[in-house]
């Protein structure tokens, strides 16, 4: 039982390595850029999975943690001369702190009300950055180009952040696996299935939900810093894009919510589809409509996502797909 379960973890980690090793193997900068996005999406989707997949709470504004982490991190690098790594960590912790402070309040809401509240928070934080002078207001912040020198120049810095996002994607998968196979995770899944019954059985639901929310916020904050460091610039419109939030949901649902492999399959599948759509003259401008339609199809026909579907179809896989 134990061994079989950890096979599931190795399968998931191997999937991430298979996706991420390409650019390192052939030192291709353009492949690196597309793969970077896949790795980042894995981190975001796996993080959202802790809340959506394990706990059953739908967050439509999850991108707020990515954007906030990016802002805090870039500010610390630019204005306070912090090294990238500690700035990224601070970005992640700030996002975790925001989740902690909001958790008790908004996680009392259920269903659509919670989802709406998360959108509200995203918009509120966007409005805040728009008016907060240290963060550059509506213009945002542009990284001083000389910062890259401390990382062996811009070209080298881009490789460094790629290694970092790759490592964090692996970490996100391990985190998902650990949560899923812990007592804490059992409590979360009980909440997902029936919050009232979970409470009667002794799950301290306000605390469990808050910690799930915090855990789902930290890694997005860290990759937020990495992304905007790589990008060299951050502004409110780029940091808090609701369409990315919705794509994260689609990805988790596509791959299979509540499974460890799901967010990885979802990320790879969706990014593949997106690249196809963006390069196809027919779909180029309606890529988001396609995402919406996809979400509808999943919810209606394969609510358990690809991993759930595979498990049901091929029982042997049940043991190896975590």
């Amino acid at each position: 039982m134990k061994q079989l379960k950890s096979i599931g973890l190795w399968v998931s980690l191997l999937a991430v390595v298979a996706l991420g090793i390409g650019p390192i193997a052939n030192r291709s900068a353009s492949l690196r850029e597309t793969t970077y996005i896949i790795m980042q999406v894995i981190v975001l989707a796996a993080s959202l999975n802790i809340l959506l997949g394990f706990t059953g709470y739908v967050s439509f504004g999850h991108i707020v943690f990515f954007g906030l982490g990016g802002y805090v991190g870039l500010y610390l690098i630019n204005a306070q001369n912090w090294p990238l790594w500690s700035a990224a960590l601070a970005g992640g912790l700030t996002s975790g702190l925001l989740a902690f402070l909001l958790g008790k309040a908004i996680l009392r809401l259920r269903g659509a009300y919670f989802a709406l509240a998360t959108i509200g928070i995203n918009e509120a934080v966007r409005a805040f950055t728009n008016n907060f002078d240290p963060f550059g207001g509506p213009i945002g912040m542009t990284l001083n180009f000389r910062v890259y020198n401390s990382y062996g120049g811009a070209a080298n810095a881009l490789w460094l952040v790629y290694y970092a996002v790759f490592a964090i994607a692996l970490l996100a998968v391990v985190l998902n696996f650990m949560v899923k196979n812990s007592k804490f995770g059992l409590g979360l899944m009980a909440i997902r299935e029936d919050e009232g019954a979970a409470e009667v059985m002794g799950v301290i639901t306000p605390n469990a939900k808050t910690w799930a929310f915090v855990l789902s916020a930290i890694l997005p904050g860290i990759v937020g810093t990495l992304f905007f460091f790589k990008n060299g610039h951050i502004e409110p419109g780029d940091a808090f894009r609701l369409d990315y939030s919705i794509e994260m949901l689609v990805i988790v649902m596509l791959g299979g919510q509540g499974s460890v492999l799901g967010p990885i399959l979802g990320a790879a599948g969706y990014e593949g589809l997106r690249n196809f759509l963006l390069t196809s003259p027919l779909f180029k401008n309606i890529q988001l409509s396609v995402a919406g339609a996809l979400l509808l199809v999943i919810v209606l026909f394969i609510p358990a996502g690809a991993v759930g579907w595979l498990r049901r179809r091929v029982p042997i896989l049940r043991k190896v797909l975590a």
Partner: protein
Amino acid sequence: MTVLLSVQGLTKQFGGLQALTQVTFDLPQGQILGLIGPNGAGKTTLFNVINGVYHPEVGRIIFRDKDVTGTKSYDLAHMGMARTHQIVRPLNELTVRENVMVGACFGRENHNLSKAAGIADEVLEFVGLDSRADQLAGSLNVAQKKRLEMARALAAHPYLLLLDEVLAGLNPSEIDGMIQIVRKIREQGITIIMIEHLMKAVMNISDRIIVLDYGEQIADGTPREIANNPRVIEAYLGNSSLADQLLEEE
């Protein structure tokens, strides 16, 4: 005789509806208390109030010498209270074993996962669900889901067990099985309050019975006293020959 649970003047309203009025009783440790009454009498509501799902407008609940009025259900679970639901609430997408592990992990004894898995297997064998342990809870039939409710509650190793119509919807042989289970639970020293419509079973198994009618406690006594109580006969049992019949079969 130590009193495990003391309910003092509980009153609960839903809007204009008086669901419970001044319900008062002491429950000694180790007893089985039967709770009967017509549909809508407030039996499940009484469980919900004792269990912290709802809080009473008036009255106090003392559990193991602590005033627990207004305490949250999860805190009561940690203190040793467990219950089953009249309308079963399985955690559908989790396995039967995982369902029971939730009870063991988060109930009174606060076990870690591997200890909880051991307890779950023991309890599943006790209620006769061991062969279903790896199945998803959603795939069980109603009788099995009732047993699952029971197993989850037992896995917490509670001091007080609230059973809400665990016999409803079962066939005669399943009922006999369940009654055996309840008897064995009592032998383990667990105190039980049991809501039941099946008169023969409650009369047989309870040390004492309380009758609710429109939220009011209209009788409190031994099964024999209850069966001969004119108010109970009028409100619930219907005719007195039925009451005699029930006692004869004891």
